[in-house]
Every structure is written in structure tokens, then in C-alpha cells.
């Protein structure tokens, strides 16, 4: 198969769109190396200082650590709860199925301002003080639905015959789950957890309503935007980006080799 000339316009247009999409990312990465003074708007020369001394700016670093804490905790809770729901949705019959689907769909179809203001009203009415815990509660809430969507596809593609074979070979229900079902679901669960982490880490709107005095990385950037964002913020965003890319790439490469190995075994 070769690319036809009639496909060239599409390829060129798409290439331009992709370049356009990368512009602000490349711009921000370049400015993480800027020898910035008070503001980081004009280019003043190349330096590695921002990268080497990120945590000299305690405010950025503190906000970053808060964001990581929130993202890790809410990802773990949301992935566990969401995976359980996904398995139940695909595998079992139960009453009120459409009500359950609606409850899962609604948080994705509600604008973030509404989710944020709603939770804030509830915390206010209940007299709960806002802080790290309320941020984690909020993030877990909006991540669950996305986890369900991501894991559900994986459960649906799982061949029940594999588990039946396990049971036929006298595997206990626990053994069948941990040695057959779980490893097969794992790629879906990992993808869901990555998505959940990315959503939580980058969330600003819901966080802004429910964080009180606590700062997260996006909140820091929002507040700093009024007086000029320091280059250390560019460093953190760029660093997170590179780590995420490496993770996604290694998941892909791992999957590729695993498929190759499986193909060899079954051949």
C-alpha cells in the first residue's frame, strides 16, 4: 500500500494542524530555558537555572506537590470505584440499569463551573472547611465516569471463554479473577488511571471553587497570571509533559512486544 497523490492535500492540511497544535507547547518549553527576570515574556538568553533550581521557588514547588498528592489519591480511588462499576455494567444484569447509566453520564455532561459551584454549596451548607481533602473529593467525583468509560471497552472485549477455561481447570473464583481477568483488564485500567491522573492534575475550574486557601499547580498559574508567571512554572509543566510522554510511549511499546510474543505463542 502506498499513499496516493489524491491524499496529499489531507496529509498537508493535517500536518499544518498538528504543527499549530504544538505551537503553545513548544513556546512554553522554550521559555522554561529563558533567563527571565521578574516576568517571563521576552527572550533574554538561554539558561538551565530554572530547571536546576525549580524548588527555589517554594510557592511553585508547594503547589506542584499538592497537585501530585491530589492526583495520586483521587486516581487510586476513582480507578478502583470506576473499574468495579465497569465490570458490573458489562457482566451482570441488574435493576435500574438506565438510571445507573444516566448517573454515570451526567457528571461528564455538566459544565465544570456547575460541578464546582454545586460541591462548594454543599461544603458550605455542611460547614466543611475547604482544603486538600475537599479537592480530592471533587476530583475523584469527576474522574469516576471517565474511568468507567475507559475500562468498560476493555471488559467488553474480554472473551468469557478464557475465564470459563480457568474454571473448568478447577481454578477458584479468586484465582480466576487474579490470574485471568485482572491481567487481561490491566491495560484498560492503566489507561484509565493515566487519563484520570491527567484530568485531575490539570483541573482548574472545579479546584478553584473547592480549594479554599490551598494552592494547586493550575491554581498557582491562574493567580500568577495577573502579575506574570515565573519560568519555574514552565519547567514544571514541561517536566510533567516529558514524563507523561515517556510513560505513554513505554505503555505502547510494552503492548507491542506483548502482542508479538502472544502471536508467537499462538502460532
Amino acid at each position, binding site marked *: *500500500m502506498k499513499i496516493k497523490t*489524491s491524499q496529499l492535500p*489531507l*496529509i498537508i492540511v*493535517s500536518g499544518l*494542524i*498538528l504543527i499549530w*497544535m*504544538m*505551537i*503553545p*507547547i513548544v*513556546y*512554553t518549553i522554550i521559555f522554561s530555558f529563558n533567563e527571565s527576570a521578574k516576568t517571563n*515574556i521576552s527572550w533574554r538568553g538561554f539558561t538551565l537555572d530554572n530547571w536546576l533550581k525549580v524548588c527555589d521557588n517554594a510557592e511553585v514547588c508547594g503547589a506542584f506537590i499538592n497537585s501530585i498528592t491530589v492526583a495520586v489519591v483521587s486516581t487510586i480511588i476513582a480507578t478502583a470505584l*470506576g473499574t*468495579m*462499576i465497569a465490570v*458490573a455494567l*458489562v*457482566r*451482570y*444484569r*441488574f435493576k435500574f440499569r438506565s438510571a445507573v*447509566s*444516566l*448517573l454515570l453520564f*451526567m457528571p461528564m*455532561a*455538566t*459544565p465544570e*463551573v*456547575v*460541578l464546582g*459551584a*454545586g*460541591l462548594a*454549596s*454543599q461544603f458550605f*451548607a455542611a460547614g466543611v472547611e475547604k482544603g486538600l481533602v475537599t479537592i480530592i473529593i471533587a476530583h*475523584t*467525583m469527576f474522574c*469516576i*465516569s471517565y474511568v*468507567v468509560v475507559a475500562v468498560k471497552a476493555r471488559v*467488553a472485549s474480554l472473551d468469557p471463554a478464557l475465564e470459563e477455561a480457568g474454571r473448568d481447570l478447577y481454578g477458584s473464583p479468586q484465582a480466576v479473577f487474579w490470574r485471568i481477568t485482572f491481567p487481561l483488564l490491566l491495560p484498560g485500567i492503566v489507561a484509565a488511571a493515566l487519563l484520570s491522573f*491527567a484530568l485531575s492534575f*490539570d483541573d482548574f*475550574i472545579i479546584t*478553584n*471553587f473547592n480549594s479554599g486557601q490551598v494552592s494547586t499547580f*493550575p491554581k498557582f*498559574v*491562574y493567580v500568577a*497570571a495577573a502579575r506574570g508567571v515565573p519560568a519555574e512554572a*514552565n519547567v514544571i509543566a514541561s517536566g510533567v*509533559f516529558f514524563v507523561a*510522554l515517556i510513560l*505513554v*510511549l513505554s505503555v505502547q511499546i510494552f503492548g507491542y512486544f506483548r502482542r508479538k510474543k502472544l502471536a508467537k505463542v499462538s502460532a
Partner: protein
Amino acid sequence: MAFAAFSTNAAPVEAAPKKRSWIAPFLLLPGLAYLSLFFLVPLIALLLTSFQATEFGPLGKEFVYAFQWENYVQAINEYMPHIGRSFFYSITATIFALLIGYPLAYLMGVTLRDFPMWKSLVLMLVIAPFFFSFLLRALAWKQLFADSGPVVGVLNMLGLFGPGDYLNGTDFSVIFGLTYTFIPFMTLPIYTSLDRLDIRYLEAAGDLYGKPATNFWKVTIPLSMPGIVSGTLLTFIPASGDYINASNMFLGSPSTAMIGNVIESNYLITQNFPIAAALSIALMAVILVAVSIYIRRSGTEDLL
């Protein structure tokens, strides 16, 4: 695998689960209880807040539960321009995002089908913005659009812009920012639809002497409709409530303020909770009505 082609138009057919088991409620309960407590109950709290009356007590401003529906009249009267602007911006941005996202999705789903390495590369690039701070990307555009920045410079050089012209804080920059932000949300669902499309339909249309344009409108578009519907919703809903792009610290100005900006300032700055709550409930109601009409008219009710 041939059956897979039929499922692209309707919702993917799930193998009907037959088993009933005590395990099902055990698996569902924790997650659903969580969503009820932290999604449903807050919506009720918001609804109650939207009817609260303001009283000036000894401790200053206080809110008491009442049935003050006038809050809605007041909120809508006062902020009608913002509400109109929000929907104008978000609908325009959704249309642009569709025009930009569709070619990308088509490239990945159809053109590059036999080139898995290239396809993965393009997919990575489409997903990449998810991993990069959304606020810093918006700020980067702001700096590129600044009066002394490269974009205005080029426009000046071409004679398209005069001394008093600017980009930041205009309808253009806000719609641009919204379009840019939601491109991946538009592209990915369309890609999923096109990826499942059985290429033999396109070949059959060609064999029957359909012109490429006719084939595209009569075959490709209808078969990718579920993706188009989810993509437009995933763009329109968050865009209509967004307040970053339209904020004056980012790509907007006071004259581009959207409903999200108003809700934020009423809630977090002036602490006028009932008005902010009334606006939130009104926004949600409009979106729910618009979305259900849209889903019905596009014939993808199975989507949910």
C-alpha cells in the same frame, strides 16, 4: 468481524449480560453511593441555594432558605449579554473544532490505516496537549497575540493591521482559544468512529461510480455520525461553561466575559451565592435541553 461494520451506525452492541448475581450490587454500590453523595446531593444543594434570600443580619450578609424565584429573573435580566455571548462563542468554537478535527480524525482512522507507525505518531500528537498545562497553553497564545508579539507584527507588516488594532481580548481571540483547547476532545471520538468504519463500504461506493464528494457525504459522514455527535458534545458543553479563555488575564477582556466568568465572580469574589447558583442551574438547564434536542435530531439516541 463483518458485523462490526453494522455496529458503527448504531451504538456498539453490547453482548447482553445474562447473569444476575449478588456480586453486581456489591460492585456498583460504592461508586454509585459516591456519585450520589458528591454529584447529586451538590446539585440539590445548588438548587436550594439558587432560591435563597439575602438578609442583612448582625453578622453581615446572610442567606436564608426561601423560595425566592426572583433570583432567576434578576440573574437572567442582569446577565443576558453574557449568556448570549457564551452560546455564541461555544457554538462557533464547536463548528471550527469540527472543521479542524475531522480531517485529523480521517487521516488517522482511514488514510493511515495501513501505516500503524504513522498512525500512532499522529495519535500521540493529538493526545499530547492533554499532558500539558491547559492554563499555560492559553497564556502562550496570549503572549503570541500580544501587541508587541509576532502575530500582530506580521499583520502589521502585511498592512492588515493599523496602529490601534489588537488581538487579545477580542471575540476572535476567545473563540480561537476555545477552539484550540477542545480540538483533542473533538478529534478522538470521531477517530474512534472512523477507525471502526469498514473500508469496503467506501470501495463499494467507488465501484458504483459515486463521485468522491458524494461518497463522503452519503457514506463516510453518516457512518461517523456517532463520533461527530460525541465530539461536538464534548466540545460544546465544557466550552459553554469555560471561563479561562474569556478571562481578562488570559485571552479575554471584560467585554468578552462569559457566563462562567460571571458565576465565578459572583461565587468567589462578591460571594453572591444565590445569583451564582441560579446562573449555574440556568446554564445546566439550557445545556440539557439543547443536548437532548440535538441527540434526538441527529438520530443517535443510543449514544447514552
